[in-house]
């Protein structure tokens, strides 16, 4: 209870689902052999933390930010550039963290002070503009970021797949640097989600919810709403940058497509909405559903598209083409905003299936 900050899932089904997800993630290296399963599991961990941090903004303060991938990208690039430039050692990892996190927080502070002060709706537009400028900047400054190609780098010795920590003869499976990296990602993500849970259930989190419900009234109660919103924005940026660091460490790469592109922003939005806004737990559910679907449904779409084109149907092959995955996602997105505004978690909490 202490661990969950007095905010348990409050639904038996939800608890069960969460426990299953977390156990499955923790046991992935042993349960599901193969690189793909481990990749998917690591991505779920990273995105669960990233989406949870976005939920702090969208779900708890009600402000829509389109710059979340920017902070994610700052984290990714900071560690990638540090490891690329300084070579694979722990000093480089530390440098990346020491440079990346404050940079993300400062930028979030600047954006927050600048746009949260004005009308709330400005925030969404300004973050979109700033994020797109940042994206262009990252792809143009190729001497630093590697341009469109991004930066590949090597990890410190301990985290490399070649490093065998516990040989196969001991337990029947090998524990190598790759699995250690996975557990690093898993543990840090879990810690960040627990920390966010703590934040939203603190008095500070209550003020954020008050601002979401009625900013004017919160201000009338004497809270400096701009301070609270900016603080939340910085916190979310810090967690997002950390998630970016984890992602870059896992992929051993940072580039515009994996860390900055607008489609990642849309993915995050979708995961929050599907999982349930303003619940933090929704982030875990949303990320799991989405990434599983992204990795395994897309191949299904390819099969369907091929079948449709062989049957000679017009238009359908184009619509079902795996590259058109976002189209169906968009439709799902609209439908979930419309029909399930509280997301999976909201549904489960309100007692399964019945209207909240």
């Amino acid at each position, binding site marked *: 209870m202490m661990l969950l900050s007095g905010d348990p899932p409050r639904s038996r089904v939800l608890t069960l689902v969460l426990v299953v997800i977390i156990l499955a993630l923790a046991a992935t290296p042993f349960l599901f052999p193969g690189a793909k399963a481990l990749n998917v599991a690591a991505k779920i961990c990273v995105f669960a933390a990233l989406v949870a941090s976005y939920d702090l903004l*969208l779900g708890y303060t*009600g402000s*829509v930010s389109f710059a979340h991938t920017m902070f994610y990208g700052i984290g990714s690039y900071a560690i990638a550039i540090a490891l690329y430039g300084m070579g694979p050692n722990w000093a480089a990892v530390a440098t990346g963290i020491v440079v990346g996190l404050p940079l993300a927080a400062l930028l979030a502070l600047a954006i927050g002070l*600048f746009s949260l*002060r*004005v*009308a*709330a*709706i*400005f925030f*969404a*537009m*300004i973050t*979109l*503009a*700033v994020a*797109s*400028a940042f994206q*262009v*900047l990252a792809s*143009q400054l190729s001497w630093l970021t590697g341009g469109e190609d991004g930066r590949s780098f090597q990890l410190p010795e301990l985290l490399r797949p070649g490093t065998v920590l516990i040989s196969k003869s001991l337990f029947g499976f090998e524990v190598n640097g790759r699995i250690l990296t996975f557990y690093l990602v898993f543990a840090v993500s879990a810690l960040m989600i627990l920390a966010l849970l703590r934040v939203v259930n603190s008095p500070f989190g209550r003020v954020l919810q008050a601002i979401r419900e009625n900013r004017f009234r919160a201000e009338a109660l004497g809270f400096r709403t701009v301070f609270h919103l900016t603080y939340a924005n910085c916190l979310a940026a810090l967690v997002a940058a950390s998630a970016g660091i984890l992602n870059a460490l896992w992929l051993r790469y940072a580039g515009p497509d994996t860390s900055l592109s*607008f489609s990642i922003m*849309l993915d995050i*939005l979708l995961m929050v*909405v599907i999982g349930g806004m303003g619940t933090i737990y929704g982030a875990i559910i949303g990320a799991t559903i989405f990434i599983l679907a992204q990795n395994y449904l897309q191949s299904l779409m390819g099969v369907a598209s091929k079948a449709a084109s062989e049957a000679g149907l017009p*238009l359908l092959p*184009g*619509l079902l*083409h795996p*590259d*058109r995955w*976002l*189209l169906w*996602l*968009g*439709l799902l*997105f*609209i439908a979930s*905003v*419309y029909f399930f*505004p509280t997301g999976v978690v909201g549904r489960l909490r309100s007692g399964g299936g019945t209207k909240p």
Partner: protein
Amino acid sequence: MTELAATDPLPKPKRDIAPILLPIALALVTIPLIGSPSTWLTLTAASLAMGMMIFIMASGLTLVFGLMDVLNFGHGAFIAVGAYVATLVLAPFAASMQADSLWMNLAVLAPAALLSMAVSGALGLIVERVLILPVYGQHLKQILMTTGGLIVAEQTMYALWGPQIIPVPLPTSLRGSFIFGDVAIAKYRVLAMLIGLAVFVAIQLVLNRTKLGLLIRAGVENREMVEALGYRIRRLFLGVFMTGSALAGLGGVMWALYREQVHASMSDELTVLIFVVVIIGGLGSIGGCFIGAILVAMVANYGGFLVPKLALVSNILLMVAILMWRPRGLYAVTSR
């Protein structure tokens, strides 16, 4: 406050001209920086033409926000749809586009532009009914819904037209430039300027000189009051939304001809651009939008010439500077 007799005319509202002087001042300041007057004139003409096109695209967005308090994140989709629909007309009539006669060219261009406006206007009707009506008055959901709409529209365009770039050649009579001494001004830019000015004047006339415009302006000020007076404000909103979408479609056609290509991702890059313009101008203000569009285009053109590296972030810098000066944009129309 001075006492007014019943027969006295109402005091004129104070005119705020500082924002109008801003682009003029910017243009004057850059003369010595650029050095050559002919280059400066060419750049200024280019900025004005680009600004007019951006204005046409952004005007709908700002009107819709001012009147309906709806922020349409999918506005860029109307632009791309307009451009794609125009290619449907322009491609089969490529022959008369190549003919070296202004009238032959316009005879194809005008129907193409009208069809684009009709299609994007009709799409506006659907979007308003399906996506915006259910979440009326809820900003958060509006943003989410219209973002979803943007994704769906963009992906549908990919599915229908494919991911490749479609070339849209300028008609022959609009190629080349008018040459005055050593100043060259592209013909198409002159046309763009004329259309942009016409749209601006038309919007201003409708808003300020007709009963419809009176109702729209009253609706911006106080929706409940207009409703209480017995006008169906929802109808009015729908009309404004469709007009805004149609204008975005027109802007899309013009932009496609300007860049001589169409691509589904154009909606993304233009969405950012028109957002910057609308924020600079002050949400809901047509005049502010006009000045904002010209400012953005000027900064892009002058900036691109003077400090090419800066051009990438020039929009953001401009926005920051303007918002430092006036936190609600050049003209703050609504109290929201």
